[in-house]
C-alpha cells in the first residue's frame, strides 16, 4: 500500500520536473516552473522518508528518520543562507558549487552501495554503481575547480600534452572500474584509488579551460551530475531519480551546445583548445603596431554624451564586479531626460554567464525593451553617436573578426567600432578574461575612461547633471 502511494508520488514528481523544465524555458512562466519543480521535489523527498519500504517490507527506523531530518535541516539552512546571501555577481560560481554537492552526493551513494550491496557476478549492477561513482566524483572536483576559477582563487594552468594525459587517465579509470566489476569480493582500497583518480581527472579536465569558457563547462558538469543521478535511479530502480537525472543530462547537454553556438565555437574546441593560454597566438599583436591610447576626462565624456542623439551602453563583467548597475540605470534615465536615446547592447556571453547582464540590469529596473540582443545592436551601431563600454573587453574585440591567429577568432562580437565615438570604461589596461590585447582601445575614435565603473559612472552622472 505505502509503496503504491510512493510510486504515484514519484510519478507526479517526474511530471513536475518535465513541466518545470518546459516552463523554465519561457520568460513569462520561468518562475512558476521553478516552483513547480521544487514542489515535486519536496513531495518526492517527504514520500521517500515516510513511505519507502525495504525489501523486507519494513519502514526506516525512527533513529534513522531523525538523522535524516537533522541532515535535511543542516542542508536546508546552509543552502538557503548560501543562496540568499550570494551577490548577483557571484551567482555563476554558486550554481557550480551546488552542482558539485550533487555530484558528491551521487558518488557517496555509490561508495555505500558498493560496500553494502556488493554482488559478485552481477556485472550490470556493479557497473551501474561504479559509473555513478566515476561521473559523480568527476563532476564534484570539476565543479569545485570551476567555482575556484570564477571566484578568482585558481588561475588557468596547462601542462604540456594535457589532453593526452587526460585521455590516458580516463582510459585507466574505465579500466580500473571494469576490473572492479569482475572481482569476487569487494576491494575498498582499489575503490578508494578509483575515487581519487576520478577526483584528479575532474581537476585536470577543468584546469586548462579558460575562464571565458567556464559557463559552458559548468553547464556540461551540470549534465554530468544529471547522468550520475540517473545511474542512482538504476541502482534503486527508482523512476523519479531516473527521469529527473536523464532530463537534466540531456537538457544540460543541449544547453551546453546552445551556449557554444552563442560563442560560435564547438564543444570539442572549448574542451581541448584552452583559451588565451598560448604565447604563439598572441605574439602577432605586439603593442608597437597598435598605436597609442587616448584618455578622455569625465567632463568631456559628459558633454559628448549629453549632446548625442543616440547612446548605446555595452555592459560587461566590470559592471557586475563594481555593482554599477544602479548607477548605470541612473545615467540612462538622466540622459533620456535630456532627450538622448539610450539603449543597451547585450552580448550573449557578456559577464561570466549567458544572461548575466540581463539579470543584473533587471535588478536595477532597466526596462526590458531597452536591452538589445547582439544582432539588433549590431544593426544600430552605424546610427549611434556614442557607445559606452562598461567593463567589457573580449566581446567588443575586433580581433575576433580580423585576426585568424587570435584565440577568440570567429566569436561574434558587438561591432562598436561602427559608432561615431567609443568611450571605454575600464579599471586599467589589463587584458580581458581571455587574456588578449584589444585593438579597439587603440582605434582613433576610442577614448579611455579609467577607474572603477561605479565611481566613474557617479562622477559622470554629476557632470551630466551640471551640464
Amino acid at each position: 500500500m505505502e509503496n503504491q502511494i510512493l510510486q504515484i508520488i514519484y510519478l507526479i514528481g517526474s511530471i513536475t520536473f518535465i513541466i518545470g523544465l518546459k516552463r523554465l524555458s519561457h520568460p513569462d512562466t520561468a518562475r512558476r516552473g521553478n516552483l513547480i519543480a521544487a514542489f515535486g521535489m519536496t513531495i518526492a523527498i517527504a514520500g521517500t522518508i515516510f513511505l519507502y519500504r525495504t525489501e523486507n517490507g519494513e519502514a526506516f527506523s525512527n533513529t534513522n528518520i531523525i538523522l535524516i531530518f537533522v541532515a535535511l535541516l543542516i542542508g536546508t539552512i546552509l543552502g538557503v543562507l548560501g543562496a540568499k546571501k550570494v551577490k548577483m555577481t557571484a551567482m555563476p560560481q554558486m550554481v557550480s558549487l551546488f552542482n558539485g554537492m550533487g555530484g558528491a552526493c551521487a558518488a557517496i551513494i555509490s561508495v555505500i552501495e558498493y560496500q553494502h550491496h556488493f554482488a559478485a557476478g552481477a556485472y550490470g549492477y556493479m557497473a551501474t554503481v561504479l559509473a555513478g561513482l566515476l561521473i559523480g566524483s568527476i563532476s564534484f572536483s570539476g565543479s569545485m575547480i570551476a567555482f575556484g576559477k570564477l571566484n578568482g582563487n585558481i588561475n588557468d594552468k596547462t601542462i604540456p600534452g594535457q589532453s593526452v594525459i587526460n585521455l590516458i587517465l580516463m582510459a585507466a579509470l574505465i579500466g580500473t572500474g571494469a576490473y572492479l566489476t569482475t572481482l569476487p569480493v569487494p576491494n575498498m582500497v582499489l575503490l578508494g584509488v578509483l575515487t581519487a583518480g576520478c577526483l584528479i581527472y575532474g581537476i585536470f579536465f577543468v584546469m586548462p579551460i579558460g575562464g571565458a569558457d567556464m559557463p559552458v563547462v559548468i553547464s556540461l558538469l551540470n549534465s554530468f551530475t544529471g547522468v550520475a543521478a540517473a545511474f542512482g535511479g538504476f541502482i534503486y530502480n527508482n523512476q523519479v531519480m531516473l527521469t529527473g537525472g536523464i532530463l537534466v543530462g540531456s537538457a544540460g547537454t543541449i544547453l551546453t551546445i546552445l551556449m557554444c553556438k552563442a560563442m560560435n565555437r564547438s564543444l570539442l574546441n572549448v574542451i581541448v583548445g584552452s583559451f588565451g593560454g598560448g604565447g604563439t597566438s598572441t605574439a602577432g599583436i605586439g603593442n608597437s603596431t597598435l598605436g597609442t591610447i587616448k584618455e578622455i576626462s569625465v567632463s568631456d565624456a559628459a558633454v559628448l554624451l549629453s549632446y548625442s542623439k543616440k547612446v548605446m551602453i555595452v555592459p560587461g563583467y566590470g559592471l557586475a564586479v563594481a555593482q554599477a548597475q544602479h548607477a548605470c540605470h541612473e545615467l540612462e534615465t538622466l540622459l533620456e531626460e535630456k532627450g538622448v536615446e539610450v539603449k543597451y547592447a547585450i552580448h550573449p556571453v557578456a559577464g561570466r554567464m549567458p544572461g548575466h547582464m540581463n539579470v543584473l540590469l533587471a535588478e536595477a529596473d532597466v526596462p526590458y525593451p531597452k536591452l538589445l540582443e547582439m544582432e539588433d545592436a549590431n544593426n544600430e551601431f552605424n546610427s549611434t553617436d556614442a557607445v559606452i563600454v562598461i567593463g567589457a573587453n573580449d566581446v567588443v574585440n575586433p580581433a575576433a573578426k580580423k585576426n585568424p591567429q587570435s584565440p577568440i577568432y570567429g566569436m561574434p562580437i558587438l561591432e562598436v567600432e561602427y559608432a561615431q565615438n567609443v568611450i571605454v570604461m575600464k579599471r586599467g589596461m589589463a587584458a580581458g578574461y581571455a587574456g588578449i590585447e584589444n585593438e579597439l582601445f587603440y582605434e582613433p575614435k576610442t577614448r579611455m575612461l579609467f577607474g572603477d565603473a561605479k565611481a566613474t559612472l557617479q562622477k559622470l552622472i554629476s557632470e551630466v547633471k551640471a551640464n
Partner: protein
Amino acid sequence: MEQLLTFIYSNMGMIYILILSVFLGIEVISHVPSVLHTPLMSGANAIHGVVIIGAIIVMGQAEPDNYLALILGFLAVILGTLNVVGGFVVTDRMLELFKKKKK
C-alpha cells in the same frame, strides 16, 4: 554476454524511460532564449538534486552498527539537500528579477 542480456532484459522498463527522457529533455528546452540560459541551467541543477532520494534510501536502511553507511549517508543527505534547496532558491532569486522587469 548472457549476463548483459539478462541485465538489459530485467531493466527493460527503465531503459525505455531513459531513452524517452533523453528525447524529452532535448525537446523541452530546444527553443530557450539566450537570456534564460543561466536560470535554466540553475533550475536543471536543482532538479538533478533528485539524487538526494538515493541518499535518503541509503541512510534510512543503514543498520545501527554500520558506521560507514551512517556517516557517509548523513553527509550525502546534507550535500543533496544543499544541491536541491540552494539550487531552487538561487534560481528563484534570478527569476524574481526577470519578473520585475516584465511589468
